[in-house]
């Protein structure tokens, strides 16, 4: 039996026959995969056919915590949604902050497995060891904040909620799942998978405590990690002061901020949408997710203009970029408004903004007939950008319904999928690989499609002095290392942002103290590599090949026209082969039997 960190129980919910039962958490899997992303993916490998239609009842959704959830480990309240993603059919895990994770633990469960499909809209009320299936017909169609409020009023005001918005209900492939009202598991279309099951959401409340295996060792690990973070200029300076949007000016100064659908990579008006401007014009206060000393979350309001009086959470860096620079928009209030709309409808802000940008380019180039757009789509038109987001949230017309499927399908519809800035059909975030080479390898190889939070090489290439952002050497190694590290920490329930200050050894110390498992730095990274390879195996079975590990042609062939990275293209091949070799994979990107045996997962191939 496990000594601490875990509650030791899984809740399995079948929506088809509306039954729920408890199962023990497997200690062997907990040791091999920690929890969260790793454990959840292991369940999917066991129970879901990788070739299944993501929106079919046979797909399952795992809502998972890690052993650090509910403790005072810094920034430890993360929750992970694991499923076969609706956006691209790859293995999907999408992470959120808020307070749901710790509350799920207090209800007695490390994770929930959701299977089947309810005949009518329902929500789950998990309260102190009981599970109710409640009619959600009155909530269907309601926005996220309203749904959160109503579910808590109907259950318990101290309950924490997970809900989908209208976007998830209408199966938008870029819809997310929202926790605690406005924290998003945004990426990979997890919202559509939940929506396809007629599940509006989950309210959870519990009264149990969370224990740790080694009281003194854990407290010491919390003390040392907290003190490292308190002394770190990013974690305790830039992030709390300006939020993640502190990056706008930093990345723009490298000439690697994708502008107007990545036709350019330097945005002269960048400061208008920066974290500094956000602080001056919109910030009300900081918000911290559970047990987070960083508190990078923004509580914001719009004080003037068309959207005066609107308020909510965010935006993050990626969101100010996608609605701002990527659409050529420098009106910060419009950017903040677009972010609020995404949170309310339950849309992924990165994919939503990049999809608007793709539509704008299709329109400007004449590939999208003028009659298809309800209003002119011009880069830099702030109002058009906001109305596009509203249209894809509401899905009232063909235009909104098309945009809600993401940029790849929009591009494909008009015969130009190459104008979709995606890898594996998922929109890439706010770093242009032509100016920061390593992040392109991360976009191309990320198991869930283009993504920055699977191996955040920006930390090594831009934020910390070390690697030259424009060279290729060493990037495969740092990408592999960070991917493995992130897979492990995503499984522990701690936030990626702690790695601005913490090393693998620090994180391992926290997990070891909480669980009592003999996890050191080396073992922590091995677990991460095991998870990464397992995800890869899922994708191979789902039909992905090495051909999918690529980037949009624009990034590979069109030089950046101006700015500090002028003339650069991304030569992905200079890193990809080395990356496969370091991973112990063949040139076809298939993991070798030897590597899988080393990692103890040969039977999963």
């Amino acid at each position, binding site marked *: 039996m496990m000594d601490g960190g875990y509650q030791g129980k899984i809740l399995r919910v079948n929506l088809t026959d509306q039954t729920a039962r408890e199962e023990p958490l497997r200690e062997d899997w907990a040791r091999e995969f920690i929890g969260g992303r790793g454990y959840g993916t292991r369940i999917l490998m066991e129970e879901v056919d990788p070739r299944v239609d993501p929106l079919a009842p046979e797909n399952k959704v795992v809502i998972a915590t890690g052993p650090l959830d509910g403790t005072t480990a810094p920034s430890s309240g993360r929750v992970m949604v694991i499923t076969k993603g609706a956006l691209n059919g790859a293995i999907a895990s999408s992470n959120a902050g808020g307070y749901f994770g710790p509350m799920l633990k207090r209800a007695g469960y490390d994770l929930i497995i959701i299977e089947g499909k309810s005949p009518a809209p329902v929500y789950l009320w998990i309260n102190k060891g009981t599970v109710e299936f409640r009619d959600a017909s009155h909530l269907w169609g309601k926005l996220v904040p309203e749904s959160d409020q109503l579910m808590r009023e109907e259950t318990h005001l101290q309950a924490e909620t997970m809900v989908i918005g209208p976007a998830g209900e209408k199966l938008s492939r870029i819809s997310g799942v929202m926790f605690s009202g406005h924290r998003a598991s945004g990426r990979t279309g997890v919202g559509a998978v939940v929506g396809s099951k007629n599940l509006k959401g989950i309210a959870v409340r519990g009264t149990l405590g969370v224990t740790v295996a080694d009281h003194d060792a854990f407290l010491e690990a919390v003390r040392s990690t907290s003190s490292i973070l308190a002394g770190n200029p990013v974690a305790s300076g830039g992030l709390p002061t300006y939020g993640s949007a502190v990056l706008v000016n930093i990345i723009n100064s490298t000439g690697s901020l994708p502008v107007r659908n990545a036709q350019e990579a330097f945005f002269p008006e960048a400061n208008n949408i920066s974290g500094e401007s956000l602080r001056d014009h919109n910030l009300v*206060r900081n918000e911290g997710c559970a047990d987070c000393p960083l508190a990078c*979350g923004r509580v914001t309001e719009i004080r003037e203009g068309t959207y005066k009086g609107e308020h909510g959470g965010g935006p993050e860096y990626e969101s100010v970029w996608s609605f701002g620079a990527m659409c050529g928009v420098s009106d910060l209030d419009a950017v903040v408004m677009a972010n609020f709309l995404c949170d309310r409808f339950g849309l992924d802000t990165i994919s939503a903004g990049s999809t608007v940008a793709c539509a704008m380019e299709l329109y400007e180039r004449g590939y999208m007939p003028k009659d298809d757009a309800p209003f002119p789509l011009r880069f830099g038109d702030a109002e058009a950008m906001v109305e596009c987001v509203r249209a894809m949230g509401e899905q009232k017309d063909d235009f909104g319904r098309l945009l809600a499927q993401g940029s790849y399908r929009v591009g494909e519809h008009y015969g130009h999928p190459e104008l979709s800035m995606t890898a594996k059909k998922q929109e890439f975030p706010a770093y242009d690989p032509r100016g920061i080479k390593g992040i392109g390898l991360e976009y191309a190889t990320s198991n869930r499609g283009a993504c920055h939070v699977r191996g955040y090489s920006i930390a090594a290439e831009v934020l910390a002095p070390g690697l030259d952002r424009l060279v290729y050497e060493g990037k495969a190694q740092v990408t592999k290392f960070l991917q493995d590290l992130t897979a492990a920490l995503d499984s522990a329930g701690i936030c990626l942002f702690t790695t601005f200050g913490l090393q693998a050894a620090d994180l391992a110390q926290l997990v070891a103290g909480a669980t009592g498992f003999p996890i050191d730095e080396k073992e922590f990274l091995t677990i991460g590599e095991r998870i990464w390879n397992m995800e890869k195996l899922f994708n191979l079975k789902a039909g992905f090949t090495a051909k999918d590990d690529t980037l949009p042609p624009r990034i590979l062939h069109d030089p950046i026209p101006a700015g500090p990275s002028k003339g650069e293209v991304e030569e992905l091949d200079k890193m990809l082969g080395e990356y496969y070799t370091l991973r112990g994979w063949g040139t076809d990107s298939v993991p070798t039997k030897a590597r899988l045996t080393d990692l103890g997962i040969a039977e999963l191939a």
Partner: protein
Amino acid sequence: MAYSSSYGVKPIGHKGKLLYLPHLERESNQGGGGMRVLVLEPAKCTGCRACMDACSFEKTGVFNPLDARINVTTFHEDLTFVPSVCTQCEIPYCAQVCPTGTLVKNAETGRVDFLREKCIGCKQCVLACPWGSIKLNHLGKEIIKCDHCNGDPACVKVCSPKALTYVEVEDMVASKQAGVAGAYRKIAEEMSRGVNP
């Protein structure tokens, strides 16, 4: 701390300066005698609830916010966060309604002590407390209240935005006065220029 410098000197009775004095004499001569209070500033609170987790762990060895002596209320509609904790009242209603003398105002520390062995579990103190700061534990049986961790509060150590501070009571007053005076100075300057605020 910041407000000490606004005095230019450390206040009398600060941190062991007068330790040689007998306790009772110090009480009578120096008033508060180093009494400390938990100061809560909702405007600085980020709602992370680390204080609640740290409190429960300190008291029970388990992370459970229901066993925390301190509480943070989140208002979802406008994302405001309000911490609350026992104010160690000078005239404690909880002590007044207690039929067994379980809750006692401690003149030395300024705290309201909870003498567990005397408690019969009648819960009158829970109802009497105007702040909801006398609580029942997660089992709904045992009375729990803040004791400042006997002078070293665990909650304060994890509060990175410094919404919780543990300060000597006279310093809290001085700090408050300095803040108000600073605001008033601007008004006074404007008035001296003939501007009516």
